């Protein structure tokens, strides 16, 4: 346990930049990209340094304002949160290139507002993964939520309505979480997670502990759009400005899943969480249903972005199920899937951003013949699709591997079947699009290559991050072993 404040810079960099963007961006549009990207590069650099320090010296602890815990707020960076920090800053940095371009097109003159919220959201997410205090977590959760309400409401058309629904649902979720924290406080008299973890095993109040856990979980499930509490997500992410979706869709749900892992690992002990076999398998069943329903709902969509949002709902089921399988493989798979799913979603949403930038829509019918107009974009899409389907060696395969293995080990065949079926449905979903893009409009059942297929690739700013992400999908896939050995296996408690 060393004391360092390096990780504060990770959070502070986007936060400070947010203020500057708001002020300076009014006068000089050209300063915005520099500020946004600069601050995120600093954040990413900091996050990498923090992760390196954590790997070398073990978890970092930092007490804000020098109030010693359990009274003060404590920030903790262990292997898991270090990894999440890198993930968040990396995804945010990659997404920001594309966001800058699409916001310029969609919200001319409002860039400084947009990026103020955007950067605060990122700072909030960084804070979320670091905090070691249950109440502070609530505050940060609301910071990220409020900024994303704002970002989503900046979209055109139905966006404000979707945002309002999100506000209502999000607030219910946050209130449930707060209620859980309240019960926890009554029980233990502390809000520090480590302190709670120390006190809880000595308490003999199973019902109250379970109630608190129930409230905490339900609150987070609403926030992460766990089926059937997912109602807000598809509208919110498909009506949001493209630039907001590119960053929020990969990160928001995944960070919430991380919070769930954090609460389970750092506040409770596995014995508490998995005490009731009925509850445990009930949740796994619910996850299986979530996976299947999310996939089927995705099937009914006529717009690529909307389809992806339902796939996010299904993917949340993967992770929740993996966590509640109650074995090391399942938990490893779930944590791995947080990373992989963030990258896959990022890749696909970047594709969406690139296509929208060029042709203004991603309705499925408009994708015909896209392989000829935007070959590189579609190549990246294909890799992203393979990752979603779970084709090796893309990263999606390996997390699915662990999840299925966990399911087999726990004897939860319904979960295994749900995973396999959802892979198959994903295959159909994505090949439907690949086919459309590849064959184009068939005239009299014949393909005409040069009919309206002028090559019109997305611009550099949209394309390069996309290429990087597509390569990352494979690199992370091949590096799964390294990730697990050096980070994830250290997070799994010995009791598993």
């Amino acid at each position: 346990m060393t004391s360092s404040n390096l990780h504060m810079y990770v959070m502070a960099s986007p936060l400070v930049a947010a203020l500057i963007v708001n002020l300076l961006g009014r006068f000089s549009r050209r300063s915005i990209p520099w500020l946004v990207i600069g601050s995120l590069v600093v954040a990413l650099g900091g996050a990498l340094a923090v992760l390196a320090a954590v790997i070398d010296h073990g978890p970092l602890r930092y007490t804000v304002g020098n109030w010693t815990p359990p009274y003060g707020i404590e920030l903790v960076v262990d292997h898991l949160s270090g990894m999440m920090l890198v993930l968040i800053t990396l995804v945010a940095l990659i997404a920001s290139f594309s966001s800058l371009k699409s916001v310029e097109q969609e919200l001319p003159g409002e860039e400084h507002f947009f990026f103020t919220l955007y950067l605060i959201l990122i700072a909030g997410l960084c804070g979320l993964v670091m905090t070691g205090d249950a109440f502070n977590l609530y505050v940060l959760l609301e910071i990220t939520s409020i900024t994303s309400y704002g970002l989503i409401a900046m979209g055109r058309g139905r966006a404000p309505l979707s945002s309002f629904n999100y506000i209502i649902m999000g607030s219910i979720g946050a209130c449930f979480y707060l209620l859980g924290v309240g019960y926890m406080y009554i029980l233990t008299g502390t809000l520090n997670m480590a302190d709670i973890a120390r006190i809880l095993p000595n308490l003999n109040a199973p019902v109250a502990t379970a109630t608190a856990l129930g409230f905490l979980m339900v609150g987070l499930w609403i926030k992460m759009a766990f089926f059937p509490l997912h109602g807000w997500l598809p509208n919110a992410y498909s009506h949001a400005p493209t630039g907001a979706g590119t960053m929020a869709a990969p990160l928001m749900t995944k960070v919430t899943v991380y919070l769930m892992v954090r609460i389970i690992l750092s506040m409770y002990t596995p014995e508490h969480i998995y005490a009731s076999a009925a509850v445990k398998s009930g949740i796994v069943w619910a996850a299986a249903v979530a996976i299947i329903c999310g996939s089927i709902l995705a099937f009914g969509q006529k717009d690529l972005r909307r389809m992806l949002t339902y796939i996010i709902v299904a993917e949340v089921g993967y992770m929740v199920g993996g966590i509640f399988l109650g074995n090391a493989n399942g938990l490893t798979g779930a944590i791995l899937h947080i990373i992989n799913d963030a990258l896959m979603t990022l890749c696909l949403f970047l594709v969406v951003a690139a296509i929208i930038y060029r042709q203004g829509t991603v309705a499925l019918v408009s994708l015909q013949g896209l392989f000829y107009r935007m070959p590189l974009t579609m190549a990246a899409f294909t890799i992203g699709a393979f990752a979603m389907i779970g084709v090796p060696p893309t990263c999606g395969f390996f997390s699915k591997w662990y999840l299925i293995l966990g399911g087999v080990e726990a004897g939860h065949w319904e979960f295994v079947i749900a995973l396999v079926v959802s892979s198959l449905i994903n295959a159909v979903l994505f090949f439907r699009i690949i086919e459309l893009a590849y064959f184009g409009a068939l005239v009299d059942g014949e393909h005409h290559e040069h009919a309206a297929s002028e090559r019109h690739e997305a611009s550099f700013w949209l394309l390069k991050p996309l290429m990087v992400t597509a390569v990352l999908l494979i690199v992370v896939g091949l590096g799964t072993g390294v990730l697990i050995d050096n980070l994830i296996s250290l997070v799994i408690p010995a009791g598993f």
Partner: protein
Amino acid sequence: MTPSISIWPLLAILISLCGAIPILLSNRQPNLRESWTILIALLKLMIVASLLPGVLYGEGYIFTIAEVLPGVPIELRVDALGILFALVASFLWLFTSIYSIGYMRALNEHAQTRYFASFAVAISSTLGIAFAGNLLTMYLFYEMLSLSTYPLVTHEQNAEARASGRKYLTYILGTSIGLALPAMLITYATAGTLDFTAGGILTGKASPELLALLLVLFLFGFAKAGLIPFHGWLPAAMVAPTPVSSFLHGVAVVKAGVFSIFRVVFHILGPETLQSANLNVVITTVASITLLVASLIALTQDSMKRRLAYSTVGQLSYMVLGAGMISAVGRLGGVMHLAMHAFGKITLFFCAGAIYVASKKKYISQMDGLGRRMPITFLAFFLGSLSIIGMPPLGGFISKWNLVIGTVDGGQYVLLIVLLVSSLLNAAYFLPIVYRAFFADAPAGEETGWKEAPLFCLVPLCLTALGSMLLFFFHDTLLNLAQMAVGIAP
């Protein structure tokens, strides 16, 4: 028998994968592009051949690409079974490349660059399957092969190609994700490893019921082997250009399916383990049914390529049947048939393509008297079909002979009958074509002059036909490899 670490297997795979890049780059210069293709094919064959002596000495090679999952690396290992498949595939790829050039240019096909690039990826994946050191690696390359062949199958990009492409992916991807993947994970959860080990990794670890489940999942999960009821993709995939059909659906893809089944039966489940649970009956039953049904369907097909496709489905089951035999000699026959059938079938497909290039004829009923216009092609066709039927002096005889011996050795007389009946059926669906071509009268009003396909098409098909014959006389190496693969002392 300690395998030495060597990077050559990886290079053998990578060379055509990296070769896709210069092919893509020389998009606008067809001559340069085709030179690349040939050069890569040659280099690849040389690399694979250079690995052969080591394997014959009983050494083998091993190379770990990446430690993707703790305990389950992506690993290449060259053993007798693998090198046999790799040799066949890379040898025939050379001929296919030459043939492709003739075929694609003669028909002036579109998107030739994409075609050659996809082809390069497909052959890489095939070698990857051959050299895979564990089930995960094999699965990885298996999926790569499925996906890289999709643009080839749908090359025509018309409505028919789209429908076939759908069917192709539904069958291939559906079974590999839906059946093979869970089976692999259950195997891993049970055995704790996925390394290919002679005699299997599940001995004593799995109950007979679990073994039965795994066997069924694997058998049908590798749908590239075309076992009924998952054979439908193969005839559908015949919409592809003929070189694709000949190489992929005569050699690489379908053999990859059979090879995977071999691997699973020999090195994951273990033949002895299966026999002790009396499960090899499952394999032989499925294979026998497929064999007979496919041969009967082949009889009814008028489209040349569809008849060849159903014949392929049937012949693949010979190999699977071999895998299910009690006697090791039977398994030897199955392994050898993998090579023998490849030479025979690719000749037949090349001929079908040559006929199409020269005369635009696709249906057998149109081929009356065509043999007199294209005598070389039809002679090669005759040799190819003899090999498939299993007549001396052609390679197919050797493998079928071993299969027959195997049934007698193991006392599986029912299978003996199946084999004999199906050989008769093979003769019944191939020989009439030859007869029609040479002896039936050409329809009135057709030209009668000598008109063969271009040399780029003609030379490869003659060479493979010749190869099929040479394999009858010089099969020592092949036999050695097959014996090592099934574990009989040479």
